[in-house]
């Protein structure tokens, strides 16, 4: 479904991704771990089409289509979703209205009419229940004054609404207490299907106890230096990242 080949990306002439190869098939969950500054968030941004990064080499394909010339909004329409580490506050636009805009823009791009208000309300009710979100929360301005946990839960709510093919969750576990983590993880698990894929970007193993990955990759210095099954995450938790750095240095 998502095929990344020899991906190099830089920002202001500084190369951050130095040749990433990754294939994610439908129905799979991949975890990308690694120390701070290894390029995890950059990879997430580049897949979603952030134009602040320049792809200098390699390619990203979604269902066989090269995404090189595809804008972030078009990638969203095609089924790429990024849950942000730091979601942006939009005063004056409620969560509900924001989702209406996002969904209807996506429908417009596909040549569809706006979703009827009745269907929209039903969808919002269904998905907010999934993430145990209070209705009052939905009328608040997007992310404005939200706690860290509320912001992350709201990101997954948006994911639920948009039903992407490939969802990339960038440090979704950071800033979450254990109850919020459980709710978010259970939401993601319910949204998982044989037709979509999830990429978890995380620093810690904690999230992976709730959302069990099929594959774990370790990113270091802009490259995937090790891949394995879910047991690799445990190993990393136990030993930290230092041994990897030494191993790659050798």
């Amino acid at each position, binding site marked *: 479904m998502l095929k990344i080949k020899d991906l190099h990306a830089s920002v202001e002439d500084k190369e951050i991704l130095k040749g990433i190869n990754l294939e994610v098939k439908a129905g799979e969950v991949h975890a990308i771990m690694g120390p701070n500054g290894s390029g995890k968030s950059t990879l997430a*941004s580049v897949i*979603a*089409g*952030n*134009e*602040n990064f320049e792809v200098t080499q390699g390619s990203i394909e979604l269902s066989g289509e090269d995404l090189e010339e595809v*804008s*972030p*909004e078009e*990638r*969203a*329409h095609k089924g*790429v*979703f*990024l849950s*942000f580490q*730091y*979601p*942006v506050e*939009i*005063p*004056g*636009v409620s969560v509900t*209205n*924001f989702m*209406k*805009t*996002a*969904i*209807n*823009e*996506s429908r417009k*791009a596909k040549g569809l009419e*706006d979703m009827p208000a009745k269907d929209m309300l039903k969808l919002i009710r269904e998905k907010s229940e999934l993430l145990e979100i209070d209705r009052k929360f939905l009328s608040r301005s997007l992310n404005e004054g939200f706690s860290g946990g509320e912001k992350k839960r709201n990101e997954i709510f*948006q994911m639920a609404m*948009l039903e992407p093919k490939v969802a990339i969750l960038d440090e979704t576990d950071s800033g979450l207490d254990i109850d919020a983590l459980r709710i978010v993880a259970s939401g993601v698990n319910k949204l998982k299907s044989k037709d979509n894929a999830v990429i978890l970007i995380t620093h810690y193993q904690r999230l992976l106890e709730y959302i069990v990955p099929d594959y774990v990759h370790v990113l270091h210095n802009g490259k995937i230096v090790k891949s394995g099954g879910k047991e690799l995450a445990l190993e990393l938790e136990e030993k930290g990242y230092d041994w990897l750095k030494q191993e790659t240095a050798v």
Partner: protein
Amino acid sequence: MDLKDKLISSFMAFENNVDVEHPVHDVRMAAIKNFEDKGFPSKKEEAWKYTSLNSLQKIDFSIFPKEDNALEYKDVKRYFLHEIDSYKIVFVDGIYSSYLSETTHDGVDICLMSAALTKPMYKPVIDVYFNKIASKDESLTSLNTAFSREGAYIYIPKNKMPKKPIEILHFSTGNEASLMLQPRNLIVVEENAEVQIIERHQSLTSNEVLTNAVTEIFAAKSAIVDFYKIQNDVESASLIDNTYIDQKDKSVVKVHTFSFGGKLTRNNLNFYQNGEYIDSTMKGVTILGEKQHVDHHTLVHHIEPNCESHQDYKGIYGDSSTGVFNGKIIVDKIAQKTNAFQQNNNILISDKASINTKPQLEIFADDVKCSHGCTIGQLDEDALFYLQSRGIPQKEARALLMYAFANNVLSSVRIPELKTRINKLIAKKLGVNLGFDL
């Protein structure tokens, strides 16, 4: 004849129509003298460096409009906050329209300056308040004082609050080729009383209009005043708004200025804190295009200790529009524990648009908190990416972010219907189809 000479010679004609025996006329005569000495301010003066009145002075404005310019309510309904009930003080070409107005004397006085300046029953209030906080030195204020005859008169006695907000509307019909208006408002809010006022100037044609308005507001101890200025006039209408506010202990006054239109707009907003534990708030949203020009000059004079002031002005400038923000804060030596906050953020969406922003702090006390900040920039790229990644196209995402930027100032608007109205105006000005109802 230039505009200054025309105004001075018109003063004699004006005297034929007012009671020259009334003590207010001494005030008028002193004022015309000051205007005659000083004339229109020029760009050589620091306070007028970025705003030129030269081209306006070349227009042959009518000083006294004809009296019979009637309007039908249906033609102007959309300029009223018609979603809710309100008191209305309406002027058509500077003349009071009883037909469009709804005034009251039921416990509060919501009526006319012309009545207050002539009827004996109002004399005690006029004696105490008229022209007491307005500048006697500033030439355009003096010009207005000299011709002061009509405007809104609002008196709210102790512990009272009018049942509904008050709208002050000035319409220009365009029946004159060009018209100069000089409304004069007096608003007195006594101890523990409260009032909400919405003011709007609206020209109905593309004929030139120049309004030089003066408003004096007196907020007594623990009084609450909310004043909303809607400036969304046509591109042949210019406005010089001079507002002076005197606050006593524990009073709370908020002035919101929404500048979305007009040719040239100058807002001189002056707060004088004559008491302790006072809260003064100034908020503004400015969204301009074409060749529009808006100049916000604010002044907060902290005279006594333990007071606060909050200023938050946001501007979005497109096309060849120009903006000015000059925020002056004076903290007197005895005004310890002052907390003065000032913020001015601007977004330029065209290479030809410009903004001059200048904080001006004069602090003579040593135990105060004063913060100020101004920014001029473009939209936040991370925020833009966030919206695009949700499938919102870049153009719409930009508009949505500008909307959010401006909307931030509206949290303190206490009339929900007005807030909705302003939100819609902002969306319309930015050409945003938000895809939902506000």
